[in-house]
């Protein structure tokens, strides 16, 4: 059985990835990062809307979560790529998006939007739990000092909520790295699309899918290490509590920036 596997292909896919594959991996990573950022922003907006005094905003926030958590992500991706422009009557998803130095393919834009909007529905719950974890007295103290709701949220509540938000946020990004593989269905050339195309040309599923699985494992593995470092720093400084929030955050991110600079 094993004899029918071409180990040479697996070896070269893992140890000598070609530049097309590396580009595909780059696409996977930036789609995941941008979609996650969009998810955080939308989740924050939806979480604040949920607490609003205005009923329409609360309903909208609930509807958002209902729809995007209640329907398959794959359907959302197809709907946004093929249907958004028709539905809206204007071009939300361009054929190519020109961003000065580089251009984004329309499928990539649609993929990022779909992943980001979907992620926002899950982030809303995470951010809400973080806000709920902050003692009510904090908001009261802030308002008794004459702060408006916005200022109190930004300066007092959200910095404290972020402690609760960061660990599940790390898990969400781990998921996101893998979920990006779905956008191959609308023609985005990312890691899984690369594997799929090689498979369809050679009919060697074991080799190419095993190799791409390895690369996903590398991405999530690296992220797991970074996440563990962030959480360790967060809990360590929570025990010490001698650092300001910003210092704590910058310290927590040091391994990320160090890793990005190429140190280890």
């Amino acid at each position, binding site marked *: 059985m094993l004899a029918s596997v071409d180990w040479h292909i697996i070896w070269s896919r893992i140890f000598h990835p070609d530049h097309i594959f590396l580009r595909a991996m780059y696409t996977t990573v930036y789609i995941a990062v941008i979609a996650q950022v969009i998810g955080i922003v939308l989740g924050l907006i939806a979480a604040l809307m949920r607490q609003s005094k205005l009923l329409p905003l609360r309903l909208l926030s609930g509807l958002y979560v209902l729809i995007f958590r209640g329907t398959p992500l794959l359907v959302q991706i197809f709907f946004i790529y093929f249907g958004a422009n028709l539905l809206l009557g204007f071009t939300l998803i361009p054929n190519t998006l020109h961003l000065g130095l580089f251009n984004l393919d329309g499928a990539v834009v649609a993929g990022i939007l779909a992943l980001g909007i979907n992620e926002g529905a899950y982030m809303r719950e995470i951010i809400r739990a973080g806000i709920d974890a902050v003692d009510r007295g*904090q908001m009261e*103290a*802030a308002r*008794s*000092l004459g*702060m*408006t709701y916005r200022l109190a949220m930004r*300066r007092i509540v959200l910095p*404290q909520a972020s402690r609760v938000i960061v660990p599940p946020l790390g898990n969400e990004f781990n998921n996101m790295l893998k979920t990006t593989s779905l956008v191959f269905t609308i023609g985005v050339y990312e890691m899984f699309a690369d594997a799929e195309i090689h498979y369809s040309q050679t009919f060697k599923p074991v080799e190419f899918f095993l190799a791409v699985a390895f690369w996903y494992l590398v991405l999530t593995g690296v992220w797991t290490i970074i996440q563990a470092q962030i959480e360790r720093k967060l809990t360590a400084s929570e025990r010490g*509590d001698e650092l300001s929030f910003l210092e704590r955050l910058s310290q927590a991110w040091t391994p990320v920036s160090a890793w990005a600079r190429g140190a280890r």
Partner: protein
Amino acid sequence: MDSGIGLGARGPLIPAAAREAAEVVVRAVDVHKRFGRLKVLKGVDLEVKRRETVCIIGPSGSGKSTFLRCINHLEKINSGRIEVNGHLIGYRERDGKLIEDSESSIARQRREIGMVFQRFNLFPHMTALGNIIEAPIRVRGIPEQEAIATGEELLERVGLAAKRDVYPGKLSGGQQQRVAIARALAMNPTLMLFDEATSALDPEVIGEVLEVMEELAREGMTMIVVTHEMGFARRAADRVAMMDDGRIIEEGPPEHFFDAPTQERTRQFLSMII
């Protein structure tokens, strides 16, 4: 040093503008408040004059804290009216009807009213000084250097100059509450509200907080103090008010109040706690 209190070492904490404010600082008329079907305030009347310290005492559940929280509109009242410095709190009057004020104008009114909470509610992600300068900088728009200078002065006055860069988690309850008082004073309020400020403290540190509050009262700050500390009420209050079942049932100067209460309910309550 955090041993000495040293309040008033450099003149009064009360700005001249506050001293020139209207004669009556707080006027509450027939204030009603319910939580759902539960009536908590059933017509509270109270007037507090400039430089006066009024202590509100009474059994728990009598509505003392709720009334205090209504004064800076942390709780909405259902009927009646509360004025601070001659301005209606939380509401606007239009054709004889009360309409709730916009968020920003309520926030503006709250700048003038300092509040100290039972559970301190210091911001745990900011240092002692950070807690104090946050609102002056972000709300009043005072330049940072100026706010820091004032903040350091206030820390010194509550005897915590050495704790400038320490986070609340590393401070004792008494120290936290003194920082909380300094934080409220940093906004230059014309009125200070104390909501059972010593109830959550260990007995051995209650004294240091009461000392700060007494000093403040002596310097002429207008204060409303909800408290169970009868010794403090006797020493520092100009008037003591007894609340029971959502009403103020008796009020008067502390000598009369404690030595010759007119109401049977007050006598009963005093005999139980003294």
